[in-house]
C-alpha cells in the first residue's frame, strides 16, 4: 500500500516535470517572441532588431532550451513565475488575487455537482425504469450536451434579464456566485448522475444485493445500504476526472460572468501573446490536474477495503 502511494506520487511528479517541460518547450519555441514583445512594450512599435537581441541576451533567451527550462522551473519553485507581459505585474501577484476566485468557483461547482449527481442518480435508481428514471436520464443527456456558455447565457436571460434577481455581470455577494456555480456544475453533475445510476444498477444485479433481498430488506434499503457503498470507487474516480474538466467550465464562466480568475487570465494571456503569463498558468494547470488525479487515485485506494487492508497471504 505505502509502496503504491510512493510509486503513484513519484509517477505524478515525473508527469508534472514532463508536461511542464513540454509546455515550456512549445511556448518558448520561438525565443524572439518574448524578447520582441518586451521590447515592444518598452519602446512601443519602434523597437528595433538590436534592442530585441539585447533583451533576449539579458534574459538568457538565447541559452539552450533545457537550461532555460531548468532556470524557469527553479525560479517557479521559489515562487517567481516571471512578470506578465500583459499586465506588467508579477505572476505571483496575479496568482494571489486570482487563484482564490477560481478555487471558490471550482469548490462551489464541485459541491453542487456532487449534490446534483447524487440526488438525480439515486432518484433514478429508486424509480427504476419509471417515469422519473426516464425523465432524469433525458435531463442528464441534455445536461451533458449543453455547452456551458449557453447555460450561462440562459441563466442570465432568466435570472438577470427576466427576473432581475442577480446582476448580469460581475460578482458581488453569495447570490452572484450561484449562477456561475450552477453553470459549471450542470455538465459534471449530469455525467456523474449517470455514473451513480448505472453503477447502482450494476451493484443491484450483484449477488450481495440478492443477499440483501434475502435478508428481507426492501428494494430501497438494498439500494441505499448494500448498493450505494459499492459505487463509491467508480464515483470517486469519475468525480476526479469531472472536477478537472470543470476548469474548462471555469474558463468560460469567468469570461461570461466577468470573474477575474485564472481562467479569464489564461484567455487574455493567449489573446495578448503573454507568453510568460501563459507559461505560468500552464504550470499551474499541470500541477492542478496531475495532483487532483493523484489525490483521487489515492483516495479511491483508501476507500477500497480490498486495497486498504490486503489479505495477509
Amino acid at each position, binding site marked *: 500500500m505505502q509502496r503504491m502511494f510512493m510509486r503513484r506520487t513519484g509517477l505524478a511528479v515525473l508527469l508534472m516535470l514532463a508536461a511542464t517541460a513540454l509546455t515550456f518547450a512549445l511556448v518558448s519555441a520561438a525565443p524572439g517572441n518574448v524578447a520582441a514583445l518586451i521590447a515592444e512594450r518598452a519602446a512601443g512599435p519602434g523597437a528595433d532588431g538590436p534592442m530585441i537581441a539585447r533583451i533576449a541576451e539579458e534574459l538568457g533567451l538565447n541559452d539552450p532550451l533545457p537550461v532555460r527550462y531548468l532556470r524557469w522551473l527553479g525560479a517557479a519553485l521559489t515562487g517567481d513565475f516571471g512578470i506578465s507581459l500583459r499586465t506588467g505585474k508579477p505572476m505571483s501577484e496575479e496568482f494571489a488575487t486570482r487563484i482564490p476566485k477560481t478555487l471558490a468557483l471550482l469548490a462551489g461547482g464541485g459541491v453542487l455537482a456532487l449534490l446534483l449527481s447524487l440526488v438525480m442518480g439515486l432518484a433514478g435508481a429508486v424509480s427504476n425504469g419509471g417515469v422519473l428514471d426516464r425523465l432524469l436520464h433525458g435531463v442528464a443527456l441534455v445536461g451533458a450536451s449543453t455547452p456551458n456558455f449557453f447555460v450561462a447565457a440562459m441563466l442570465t436571460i432568466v435570472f438577470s434579464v427576466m427576473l432581475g434577481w442577480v446582476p448580469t455581470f460581475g460578482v458581488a455577494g453569495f447570490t452572484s456566485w450561484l449562477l456561475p456555480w450552477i453553470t459549471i456544475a450542470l455538465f459534471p453533475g449530469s455525467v456523474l448522475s449517470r455514473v451513480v445510476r448505472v453503477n447502482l444498477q450494476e451493484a443491484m444485479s450483484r449477488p450481495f444485493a*440478492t*443477499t440483501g433481498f*434475502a*435478508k428481507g430488506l426492501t*428494494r430501497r434499503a438494498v439500494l441505499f445500504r448494500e448498493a450505494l457503498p459499492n459505487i463509491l470507487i467508480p464515483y470517486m474516480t469519475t468525480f476526479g476526472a469531472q472536477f478537472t474538466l470543470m476548469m474548462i467550465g471555469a474558463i468560460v464562466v469567468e469570461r461570461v460572468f466577468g470573474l477575474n480568475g485564472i481562467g479569464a487570465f489564461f484567455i487574455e494571456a493567449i489573446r495578448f501573446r503573454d507568453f510568460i503569463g501563459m507559461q505560468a498558468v500552464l504550470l499551474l494547470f499541470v500541477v492542478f490536474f496531475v495532483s487532483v488525479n493523484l489525490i483521487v487515485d489515492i483516495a479511491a485506494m483508501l476507500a477500497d*477495503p480490498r486495497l486498504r487492508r490486503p489479505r495477509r497471504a
Partner: protein
Amino acid sequence: MSTPVYAVENLVIDLYTPTVSVRAVDGASFHVSPGETLAIVGESGSGKTVMTLGPLGLMPEGVAVDLRGTARADGRDILTLSPAELSALRGGFFGVIFQDPMSALNPMLKIGPQLARQAQLYAGLSPEAARKEGVSLLARSGIPDPEDRYDRYPHELSGGMLQRAMIALALAARPRVLIADEPTTALDATVQAQILALIRTIQKEDGIAVVLITHDIGAVSVLADRVIVLYAGQIAEEGSAIDVLTAPVHPYTRGLLASVPDFRSESATGTKEIPGIPPNQAQLMPGCRFADRCDRVLPACHSHRPRLQTIATGEVPHRVACPVVIAAEGIATHD
C-alpha cells in the same frame, strides 16, 4: 410427521427475458416440515433454484417472472403477498444461503455489521446488544476468534469462513425455513463436509426446516431426509433419501446416481454419464422431457407426459414419473 411449515402446490413459473420465454418450473409440488431436510436435486438449469427462490421473489434482475400455484408459508400463500409483506417474510421466515459466499457478502462492508444489523432489525436489539448477538452468531457458526472476524471485510476471510458467516447471517433473524442454494459448490472439498455438518447441527438445535438445492449427491446423502429429483422443471422422482438413493426408478435418477463416482462404489470405473444435454425449455415438447436422452425411451414417451405415480406408500411415499420402467420392471403402483 409434523405439519409442513412450507408447502408448495402445482407451482408453474414462466420466465420472460426480452428475447425468450421459458417455462422454468412446470407443475411442481413440495413441502418441508420443521427439523426436516428436503433436497432438491438436478442439473444446472433444471429449475431447482427458480423453483425455490422464485416464490420468494429472489430472481435475476432483468427477468420478468410469472408464478402460478400456491406456496404456503405457515398457512399463508406467499404468492399473493404484496412486495412489502414478502420482503418482511424473506428476512424473518426464510433464511437463504447462496452458492458463492465471496460474492454474496457485500465487499465494501465489514462482516459483523452485515449480520448484526439483521439481528437488530428482527430482534429489536440495541446496537451494543446487536454486536454481541453478531459475535455470538459468528461463534455459533464455528468461526474461531469471532470478536476479531466481526470487524473484518469479506476479502480477508477464506471461502469456508465466509460461508459460515453467510450461515450466521441467514440465521440472524431466526428463520423457520433455511434455503441453502448449492451451499458447498464453491468451496474446497474438505470445507464442504464441515459446512454440511454445521447446517445439520444448527437444524437439529433450532428445529429449522432446510431446503437444500444441490447437484451434489454426496451432500444429499449426508443431509437429506427426503429428495426431489427435478428434470427440466418437472419432478422426475421423489421419496425418502434412502429410497431414492438406494432404489432409484426413474432413468434420469439412475443416470444421475451412476454418474457420481464416489457414491456406492469406491472406484470410478462404474461411472457413466448421461448422454446428451438438457432440453431447451424455450421449446416445449408434449411428452417426457427426458425422452431424448433416455436409454429406456419408447415412442409413446415423446407424445405423453408422464404422471407421478406412487410406488411405495408409507410415511414418505416414493413417487416416480416413468410408466415405462414401472411397467417393464413390474413395480406395483398405489394410485
